[in-house]
């Protein structure tokens, strides 16, 4: 598919601007009524979902050139999917997410590149991760955990840690806690060690289709070689990419793809783990876009007039992972979960996605601080989420703002409740 293939989607925009707002039925205040970080920050209509549809239409109709200004519009967007979800409350015939992805691919193909993204792709090519960290150090996070190496041993469950968990030491306690927990439940868990690579999803989002496909192929062969029946990831981005982008690229994984929060619930329900220790904390849960609305499984492109497409064949964000993380949090004794106004399908993004963290950190941090403000307003003492990119964005934003507010990866709280000593993780 190309941008031009989505002409009907783009020409279908009625400019109602629902894409700029949280689900209208759910708006509970003036302050937290908006859903799109991009247009909320940059204000011109072109920076909204609908605005980007019109921008795309303008380009393919030859009304506008693909300039640096256009690239600014295309890339100052987290691809969080809020606009798409909001639109699809009402429409069956427009897929904003698809247009946004094609727009980026078009930019890359026609040379409208963002320097920071080029650096990410260079890093990916060199070190198999977008952070530019040495490939040789990819397995350091797992030292001492006794994880099986699937290159050498068979495992039922293959853990894909993801670039952020592998290299962000601040997040190691979370993933280590997850591994400890799963191992303690007697699960045959393995990982690819140094041979694990980036899933390639970020490259796809940035518009570098070739790189993305290469890494997807790599992932497919690794999974296949492992013999695992389940692909477990703690990375919400990876989860979304495996479920949505991979099939979109024609590279559907043949194993059960599970996020750690889903797996946790399975273990709880199976009675294989129990939360014992109290965690006396009032927290709010931030739905990561890639675990929530963007993790909805891929549905093949509808052939022909999308007005005839049944609702069941449109991705509208309903199939995301929303309940399991909440259920897990509610299982922790002493922990009180309070909700923010923008949650689930209509959640506000952390700011990190779509290459924004790397290319436009100020925009990312502004977006994150908006969310932290909302968390505080909900009366929470801490914000908990289930995505390493979200955690990173929130913590960095707070640091840059010189403010303090506890941000937890869900697995950190789980570790506390299970009773895993901090020094062990």
């Amino acid at each position, binding site marked *: 598919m190309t941008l031009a293939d989505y002409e*009907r989607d783009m*020409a*279908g*925009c*009625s*400019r*109602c*601007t*629902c894409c700029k*707002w949280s*689900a*209208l*039925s*759910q*708006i*509970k*205040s*003036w302050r937290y*009524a908006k859903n799109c970080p991009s*247009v909320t920050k940059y*204000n*011109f*209509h*072109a920076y909204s979902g609908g*605005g980007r549809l*019109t*921008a795309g*239409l*303008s*380009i393919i109709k030859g*009304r*506008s*050139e693909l*300039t640096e*200004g*256009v690239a600014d*519009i295309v890339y100052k967007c987290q691809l969080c999917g809020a606009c798409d979800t909001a639109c699809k*409350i*009402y*429409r*069956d*015939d427009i897929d904003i997410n698809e247009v946004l992805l094609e727009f980026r691919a078009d930019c890359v193909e026609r040379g409208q590149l963002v320097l920071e993204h080029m650096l990410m792709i260079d890093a990916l090519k060199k070190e198999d991760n977008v952070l530019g960290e040495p490939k040789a150090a990819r397995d350091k996070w797992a030292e001492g955990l006794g994880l099986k190496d699937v290159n050498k041993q068979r495992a039922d469950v293959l853990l894909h840690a993801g670039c952020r968990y592998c290299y962000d030491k601040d997040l190691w306690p979370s993933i280590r806690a997850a591994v400890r927990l799963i191992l303690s439940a007697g699960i045959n868990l393995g990982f690819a060690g140094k041979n694990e690579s980036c899933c390639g999803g970020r490259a796809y989002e940035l518009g570098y289709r070739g790189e993305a496909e290469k890494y997807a192929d790599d992932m497919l062969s690794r999974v296949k070689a492992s013999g695992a029946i389940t692909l477990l990831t703690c990375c919400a981005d990876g989860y979304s990419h495996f479920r949505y982008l991979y099939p979109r690229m024609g590279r559907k994984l043949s194993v059960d793809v599970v996020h750690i929060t889903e797996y946790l619930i399975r273990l709880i329900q199976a009675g294989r783990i129990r939360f014992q220790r109290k965690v006396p904390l009032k927290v709010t849960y931030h739905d990561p876009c890639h675990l929530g609305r963007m993790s909805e499984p891929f549905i093949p492109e509808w052939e022909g007039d999308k*007005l*005839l497409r*049944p609702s069941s064949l449109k991705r509208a964000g309903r199939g995301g992972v929303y309940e399991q993380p909440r259920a897990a949090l509610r299982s922790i004794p002493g922990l009180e979960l309070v909700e923010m106004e923008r949650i689930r*399908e*209509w959640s506000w993004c952390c700011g990190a996605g779509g290459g924004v963290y790397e290319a436009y950190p100020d925009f990312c941090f502004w977006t994150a601080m908006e969310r932290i403000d909302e968390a505080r307003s909900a009366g929470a003492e801490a914000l908990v989420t289930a995505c390493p990119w979200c955690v990173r964005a929130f913590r960095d934003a707070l640091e840059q703002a010189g403010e303090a507010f506890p941000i937890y990866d869900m697995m950190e709280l789980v570790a506390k409740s299970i009773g895993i000593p901090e020094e062990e993780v």
Partner: protein
Amino acid sequence: MLPDQAYEALIDAVGQENVSREPVVLDGYAWQPTFNYNPELWMERPSAVVLPGSTEEVRQTILVCNEYGLKFKALSTGWCVTAAPWCEGVVILDLRRMNRILEIDEKNMYVVVEPCAIGAQIQAEVMRYGLNIHMIGAGCISSPLASATSFMGHGWDGIYMSYSPRNVLGVEWVLPSGKVLKLGTPGSGLGWFSGDGPGPSLRGIMRGAIGACGGVGVFTKCALKLFNWPGPPVVEAEGLGLDTKTELPQHFKVYLCFLPDWDSFADSMYEIGEAEIGYIINKNALGLLLSVIFPRLTRKIAKRKAIKETVDVLKNEFEIILAGNSEREISYQVEVLEDIISRNGGFLFDLGDNPLVGIFWWGLVRNYAPPILFRPGGQFMTLFGSDDSFDSQVTAARLGERIKKEWLEKDLIYDDLGDTSWMHIFENGMWGHCEVPFIFDPRNRRQVEAVMPEAIESVMASLEKNLGVGMLAMEPLIRKIASPMQGNYNKWQKEFQRIIDPRGAADSALYTGEAEIDLSTIDPNKLQKMTEIIMKNLWTESGPPR
């Protein structure tokens, strides 16, 4: 192309980050498919877009336009062709940054807002005080300020919460000359509680039955009336659209009422108005309702005669929400409603425990559903809308039925089973409204090209019945026809324009513009009739036809 000097001046007015002349950004304001009678759907590309953040920045922008011979047009949420440039050289003022709720006066029941606070935001805030705001038919995504000052203003809560232009109190208005005019009490530094006087009310030049759609300047603040809300301060609902689920709060009831024919339907509306019951009342087009809920199924069954006949039998339906402040009050209202419907030969369906209550209660109160109208076909327009007595609106509904059938037969609109109208009453039935939706696919050239002829036909049918031009009143080519039949109102509008806009800076096409209809698009027989209607109703020097 915007001259560099003007561009620099705009930057001085609002700051670098708030000005753009990037073509693709500009096109974001040129694409306006809704209610656009031009089949191209693209309007003129503006010369620049600015994002003023204050009244002073609006004023400075307008002064720049005056200085450099540019036109300007302001928009708030921008949903509709009226927000687009209608001529070359327009600087768009996107008022997004001016989005605050400045004051909620709980006791005196008004809220002071900026242009881009949308209905849903304001409602959410004022409900905490037991108050509510009138939501227009376009839904809670619209700007109440824009509706009240510049556009139309009907909505199904009008029975209890009136009509946007009648809900305006104090107003702050930047004229196209750059002068700031404050209407009513704010003009005298006395708060916002009145928009009229001293002496004559300048609300009279601000707008009329319709607004000037940006043609008279920029409204930067206004006070809007709030109304009693006997429901919870925060409504908890599950779901996002048609799947909304919520519990019906205490002292609320929701009914679907079906009447046997138009006469009994109209009688019921009159009686409900006189009984002073009801919080929301709305005649829905039943076929349309089916179309938005089951758009594909409706396509399949629309041609079946039996289905059409069933819908036709049930078409005289309305939804009504009763709201009481006490158990006694709601009981009284229920009893009265049952009495009215029963005596008029109808039946009512209590949605109390039905899962549909979510969409029919919260959907109508919050009014988040209107964009669903895009679902069946991708686009729609509405016709008629010359508000007056409810009987006259029934006349409009019947005309709409006839016209819709004609265009359905030509296969130029989506078949919503031929059901026609949305109707509501205002201020306890003081007057009524009828709007006839036509659904079509904006990507279907034949259907898009049919929009204007459909519209003109509705206007002619309306004029023939002395109903006025309704929702098309702002269209330049309709104005050219209508003004000489309605006291040459455009002459007076041009006089006002001369005062407030001496240099012609505002894009005033939708205020005073006049354009010729392409007569070749009209059937010769209909053209003959149209000419007769116009000639018969022209005003002369000695006044109206008598």
